[in-house]
């Protein structure tokens, strides 16, 4: 019996790979296509009649317009143009039944290739659950392509597809007479064969009419973000005060119980003073992610991308940059890795270069500490928290700086071509409590793992550097002034003096390169060792507010907007670009911006406020 070769094609997230896995099981070979880093997945299965079916899982793509390597490969293999690849006998186009409005567009493009094909209508169970009615017979008639329902994630969900492939039916070449209007054809087919649940689509349309309104959309987005940052400051206060009180109590117990010595200093200064200063910010991080998860679950986040697409393209960014930049607000590392979905190398480099400017969650403890310590907790217009307003402004500054840098890069670009964004806008839905709880649990665990991992490690080493060598005989200054860390701090202080940083901040910035929030724990440890009062670090905010000027605090905030205080981010840039030059350029321009911004902030504040 002859072997049948099929190729699976479809949009990303249509369940194509799940279908491939379901069909082929463990009988897969994974390699790269020659000359490019696009994954080639091939497998096979034996149909009930004994017929061998070779399955090729082609890269997921939104279009066959040859804009990226994956699109070129998909198109060339379907047409038998790729050297060393057998032309498939049949193209199995996989489409997500819950989102045919988007996926049918690609189906029509594949149909236009004029090759034998069938349509695997995947996720039919999910479509039925959502009340979407698809008349497959009508769909088949309108498309002129055989349609087979599949549920790739269920064991018997591919039975009909396997039966069809096993039946040895002569592959059907679709009629490719088209009107030329792809969107019009899709609309016509949807009207004929698909009935969306009226209530859902009605609610979606009404909400989109307001939330995606050209005049109202952006202001509503701003208000939502504004409310989030207000809540971060106002809702978190009781929990933060409770944690602070617990840390102060624990510090008191340790001070009274343990005899003087290294162990007492380590527990009081490095653990309670250092780690305790960071753990206080857990409630704020949970509240921030609570809102982000709600926006994501409700289906609003892709709409925010849609709203900002126009603004981003004006700043020389592609719409595909939105998700990497959004991810960078949690952490720049996954954000930079997410740029892999950007096909154009120049667009990708621009996105990688500005991703560290987005305010990651590691900056939150730094901003929260400085805002809480130096800015009054007053109300603006009687109900808005001033501190929340400043935090909101810090996030906006990060985004605005990123757009400005992108604009400057765009000015030097020779290739001015634009790459339009196609994205799925899912239906609005109420966030699921269980999903929210799981998401928040994960975020809390990530934060706690950072505290017990990198922050603990770096802080312990800083404690060693701040404790040894001890005070010499006749020394009058605190112990830390004679330590290695103190010496380094005093040595580099002149470089940072013009931007208002004292030697303690200089010391904290060095371990802060391992992770931004380490700077907070480092300050806690440095001040705890410097001070005679062992519980002093548990009130780090009040301590720095009495020792620093407002100009220094604002200067440090400006520094943190720009400075690449994260070695892991630079390492990921190196890995993703294969270039030390890119790491140098990114770190260089970010440090330069940080220094200039901090200098301007410090000098202006110093001029107007004095101290």
């Amino acid at each position: 019996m002859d072997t049948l070769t099929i190729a699976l094609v479809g949009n990303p997230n249509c369940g194509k790979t799940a279908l491939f896995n379901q069909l082929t099981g463990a009988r897969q070979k994974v390699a790269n296509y020659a000359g490019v880093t696009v994954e080639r997945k091939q497998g096979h299965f034996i149909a009930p009649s004994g017929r061998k079916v070779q399955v090729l899982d082609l890269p997921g793509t939104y279009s066959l317009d040859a804009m990226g390597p994956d699109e070129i490969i998909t198109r060339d293999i379907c047409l038998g143009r790729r050297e060393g690849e057998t032309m498939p006998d049949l193209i199995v186009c996989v489409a997500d039944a819950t989102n045919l409005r988007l996926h049918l567009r690609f189906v029509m493009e594949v149909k236009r290739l004029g090759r034998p094909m069938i349509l695997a209508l995947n996720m039919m169970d999910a479509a039925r659950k959502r009340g979407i009615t698809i008349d497959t017979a009508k769909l088949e008639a309108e498309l002129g392509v055989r349609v087979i329902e599949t549920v790739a994630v269920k064991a018997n969900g591919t039975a009909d597809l396997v039966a069809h492939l096993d039946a040895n039916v002569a592959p059907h070449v679709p009629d490719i007479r088209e009107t030329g209007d792809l969107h019009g054809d899709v609309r016509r087919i949807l009207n004929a064969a698909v009935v969306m649940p009226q209530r859902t689509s009605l609610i979606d349309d009404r909400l989109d009419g307001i939330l995606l309104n050209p005049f109202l959309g952006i202001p509503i987005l701003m208000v939502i973000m504004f409310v989030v940052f207000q809540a971060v400051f106002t809702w978190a206060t009781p929990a933060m005060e409770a944690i602070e009180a617990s840390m102060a109590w624990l510090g008191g117990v340790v001070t009274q119980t343990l005899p003087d010595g290294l162990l007492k200093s380590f527990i009081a200064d490095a653990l309670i003073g250092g780690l305790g200063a960071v753990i206080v910010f857990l409630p704020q991080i949970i509240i921030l992610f609570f809102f982000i998860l709600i926006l994501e679950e409700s289906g609003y986040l892709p709409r925010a991308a849609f709203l900002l697409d126009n603004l981003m393209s004006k700043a020389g960014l592609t719409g595909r940059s939105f998700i990497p930049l959004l991810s960078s607000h949690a952490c720049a590392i996954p954000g930079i890795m997410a740029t892999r979905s950007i096909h154009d190398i120049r667009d990708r480099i621009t996105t990688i270069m500005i991703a560290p400017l987005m305010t990651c969650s590691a900056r939150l403890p730094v901003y929260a500490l400085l805002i809480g310590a130096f800015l009054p907790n007053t109300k603006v217009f009687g109900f808005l928290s001033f501190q929340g307003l400043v935090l909101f402004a810090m996030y906006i500054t990060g985004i605005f700086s990123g757009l400005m840098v992108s604009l400057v890069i765009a000015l030097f670009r020779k290739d001015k071509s634009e790459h339009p964004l196609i994205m799925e806008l899912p239906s609005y839905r109420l966030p699921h409590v269980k999903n929210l709880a799981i998401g928040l649990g994960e975020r809390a665990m990530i934060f706690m793992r950072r505290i017990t991992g990198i922050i603990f490690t770096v802080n312990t080493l800083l404690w060693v550097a701040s404790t040894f060598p001890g005070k010499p005989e006749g020394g009058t200054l605190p112990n830390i002034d004679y330590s290695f860390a103190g010496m380094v701090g005093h040595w580099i202080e002149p470089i940072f003096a013009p931007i208002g940083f004292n030697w303690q901040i200089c010391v904290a910035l060095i371990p802060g390169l391992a992770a931004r929030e380490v700077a907070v724990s480092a300050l806690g440890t440095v001040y705890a060792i410097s001070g005679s009062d062992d519980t002093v670090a548990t009130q780090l905010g009040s301590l720095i507010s009495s020792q620093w000027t407002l100009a220094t605090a604002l200067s440090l905030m400006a520094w943190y907007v720009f400075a690449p205080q994260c070695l892991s981010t630079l390492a990921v840039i190196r890995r993703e670009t294969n270039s030390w030059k890119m790491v140098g350029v990114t770190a260089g321009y970010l440090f330069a911006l940080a220094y200039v911004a901090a200098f301007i902030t410090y000098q202006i504040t110093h001029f107007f406020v004095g101290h």
Partner: protein
Amino acid sequence: MIYSVVQAVIITAIVAFCALQMLRRLMPKLSHDLQVRGSKALNRADLPAVVQSIGQKLQPVEAPDSGCGSGCGSCKGCSTSFEIKD
């Protein structure tokens, strides 16, 4: 006296652990090479069985390739990296 010894041992162990963690994080290749060398030195046939078993335990576990050949498929076939001429 005993307390001084105990606290010195505890602090030394914690600091050594942290230094090792930082070495692994900041210099993964050097840390891997040192681990391999240490493992080979302890896993010699002329050494006692206990030392050899420590050497075997010290041998680094080779993680599977995380690139395109690993078959993880998490990147959905997207290009993972590109070359920029330095």
